[in-house]
């Protein structure tokens, strides 16, 4: 089981705390760094016990037309074992639970759309999806990147802990629910209850957000380019800093989702942290919070 260790604060810690973020390292099977302004991310510990040594120049294909999701996932694993570092998945046809549980470095190119629970529980791969994804894409993602060219369904990036999860189109409701780290970047709009009970990490919404944005968030940061239908309980506006703007510039440029209004259109939302001690509040104080 992973244990939480706290090292002495560094400059990086100081900067992340200035942005309202925290840095933690989990010692255990997976190591996570939640914040790195310079994007010079250290080696993420991909030498997992059951990971494979793959060659990114060795490229193979899988045609999922007549395959079940379990067969596709097993085939991806077999190919990684054979050293394939780049795999093209053709004809996914919106089937559910594909490309899940990949704990390896890998370039995975998905030509088409995924159904529910696509790319869940991944730790390490870079995934590019030319189509759309259904509900719960990237759920519990630990590290790596997922880049989706079209839209995404609800529960996008639920409980993710690390990596970059990017959708260039619109996403559904409860985006980033319970996220514990990593970055969720949305090129378009998001639905209601985006960032619900968010704990850590950062979310960028280039368009508008539905009602109750950031409801009951514990921590973390939401950057919003458009307008929210409403803010959720205990979500509050905060001042943008230069560090915020630098980070947004780098990320949005990297993934080519910079909105027309540029970085200047973004505002920041953080936890008011009034609910943290909710149970200790007097009844009259509870009313003030809610």
């Amino acid at each position, binding site marked *: 089981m992973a244990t939480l260790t706290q090292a002495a604060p560094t400059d990086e810690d100081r900067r992340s705390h200035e942005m309202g973020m925290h840095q933690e390292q989990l010692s255990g099977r997976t190591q996570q760094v939640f914040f790195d302004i310079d994007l010079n991310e250290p080696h993420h510990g991909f030498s997992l016990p059951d990971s494979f040594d793959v060659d990114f120049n060795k490229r193979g294909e899988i045609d999922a037309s007549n395959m079940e999701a379990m067969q596709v996932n097993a085939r991806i694993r077999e190919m990684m074992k054979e050293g394939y570092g780049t795999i093209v998945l053709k004809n996914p*046809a*919106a*089937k*559910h639970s594909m490309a899940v549980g990949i704990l390896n470095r890998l370039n995975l190119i998905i030509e*088409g*759309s995924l*159904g*529910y629970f696509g790319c869940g529980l991944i730790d390490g791969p870079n995934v590019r999806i*030319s*189509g*759309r994804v*259904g*509900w719960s894409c990237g759920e519990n993602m630990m590290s790596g990147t997922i880049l989706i060219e*079209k*839209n995404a*369904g*609800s529960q996008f990036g639920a409980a993710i802990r690390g990596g970059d999860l990017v959708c260039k*189109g*619109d996403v*559904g*409701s*409860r985006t980033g629910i319970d996220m514990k780290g990593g970055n969720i970047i949305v090129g378009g709009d998001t*639905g*209601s209850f985006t960032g619900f009970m968010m704990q850590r990490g950062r979310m960028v919404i280039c368009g508008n957000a*539905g*009602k109750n944005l950031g409801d009951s968030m514990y921590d973390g940061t939401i950057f919003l380019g458009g307008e929210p239908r409403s803010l959720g309980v205990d979500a509050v506006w905060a001042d943008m800093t230069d560090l915020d703007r630098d980070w947004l510039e780098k990320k949005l440029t990297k993934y080519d989702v910079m909105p027309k209004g540029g970085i200047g259109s973004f505002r920041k939302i953080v936890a008011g942290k009034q609910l943290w001690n909710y149970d200790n509040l007097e009844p009259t104080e509870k009313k003030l919070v809610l």
Partner: protein
Amino acid sequence: MCGIAGVIHRGKAVGVGQEMTAMLQSLKHRGPDSTGFAVYGVSKPDEYVMRLKLAEAEDFDTDYNILDKIRDRQALVDNRLAELGAKTIEVEQPTPYAFRYRLQFSGDTKQLATDLEHIDGGEVLSFGHSLELIKDLGDATVVSEQYGLDDFRGTHGIGHTRMATESDVDIRSAHPYWAYPYNDISVVHNGQITNYWIMRREMERLGHRFMSNCDSELLAVYTANNLEQGATLEDSLKSSIKEIDGVFTYLVATNKELGMAKDTMAAKPMVLYESDDIVALASEEVAIRAIVPREIDTSDPYDEEVRVWQR
């Protein structure tokens, strides 16, 4: 969990029975208990199609005399139709308990449906110029084959695969529901309605009838009540979001339109595909891919979203 699906073609009739079968079969994992179809054929203004059942499938397990009873009940149906001045053009009996009548009738259709439902075991599943409502136990392929849906041509349809949660596994609790007594209106629903009993009592006080204890039937009755008050389909869908509590995504079809509404929590899924020729929507994209087998652009309607499409 349940799965719902709908499709509407703009300006042409196609094999919509086959399409709905393919869509619902791909949603079987969301609800294997029963499957239902509300398909809309080419409308004949001078002719009605009525689908009714005169027993439950389970009656065959418990009543050795059920076939005789059904025969007697059908005779009563024929008598009452004749008494009310309805002219029967054709009768089909796809299963021992399900009937399809083609009729000519110029009287009060509500009275006709009410009279037939007074017959023991009788339930009018649908009545209209183009709607045919078919529902039975089993998956989409089984029901479709049983009722010969592969040959059904029409402009649009909605359907449902049911995982029974709050009421029995039987035909009366299966979807779709006809918006009795309105011709050609049907409803399918995915979700749970939490103010069902309050709303049901309110509807009953207004004189509406319920045939089951399934919460989804409320949406059909609620829609019928709104239309009776002169509301449009879109008005009815919008008001339902404010008046119905719970989590729901539901579809309503009339002889010309297909509409959808999603509740305020957006807790039940819906994926939408729109093109110039066709609109298809379903709980999961795999159902849409069953009839549009190529890469397509789809989207999720948001919370409180209401949409209506014309055929």
